[in-house]
């Protein structure tokens, strides 16, 4: 299960930076007043303004109408190693599919196909 989670790892990071970018973007345009004195300021800001890749819902791409709770390998990329369900903003899943996904994950947890929490 851990190796299934591996490709998901970049997601939290990009989600986090997205948040930062959003926060610092608008002040950046009127920036010089905030940190103009610092020599490192502008360069750092430039680095942070990378182009974000648009995340698309994986289920919409495959046109999934029903998320099967029995396929643990499909569901496992959407949970953390500790067993938490990953939020939409990290996986890019659309609202509708996320709704179905949570139900499927919870069903799978009940029949021990997915963990509720990581074992000690």
């Amino acid at each position: 299960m851990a190796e299934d989670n591996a490709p998901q790892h970049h997601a939290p990071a990009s989600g986090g930076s997205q948040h930062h970018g959003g926060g610092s973007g608008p002040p950046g345009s009127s920036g010089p007043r905030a940190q103009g004195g610092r020599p490192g300021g502008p360069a750092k800001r430039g680095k942070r303004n990378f182009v974000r890749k648009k995340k698309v819902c994986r289920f919409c791409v495959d046109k999934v109408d029903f998320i099967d709770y029995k396929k643990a390998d499909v569901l496992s990329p959407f949970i953390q190693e500790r067993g938490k369900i990953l939020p939409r903003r990290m996986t890019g899943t659309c609202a509708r599919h996320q709704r179905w996904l949570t139900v499927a994950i919870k069903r799978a947890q009940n029949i021990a196909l997915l963990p509720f929490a990581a074992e000690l």
Partner: protein
Amino acid sequence: MEERQYDLIFICRPDTPEAEIDKVISTLEHTATEKGAKIEKTEKWGRKRMAYRVHRLREGFYVYLVIRSSHGEVVKELERRLKVSDVVIKYLTIRLDEEFKRQEKLKRHRERRAARRPRKATPAAQPPSAAGGEQATTL
């Protein structure tokens, strides 16, 4: 009343002999037919590692059944049987017909729309990513 469909999964102890599991399945089948339901599919997934420990066991023998019935009492009776049984450590019944109905509806909807306008932009009923994917396939 219209027919309902249920998924029934149960997990047996991993050290149970196959004959014992077959016995459980046949009793379930018997009970189901007695109550007017029919078992559509029986699948033995075999020994699998469980995601967490149940009764201090790490593995379990999974059995998967699909049941069709017009009323829910069958489920009650089947679950009672599973609860009583010593070899069964966990079970889960899920009603799925409504979800299949929804699935059918969405599928029909999509097909109809694809047939109607093969290359124009689809209306905003579906998320944009889905609409985009659809266009790609129809073109």
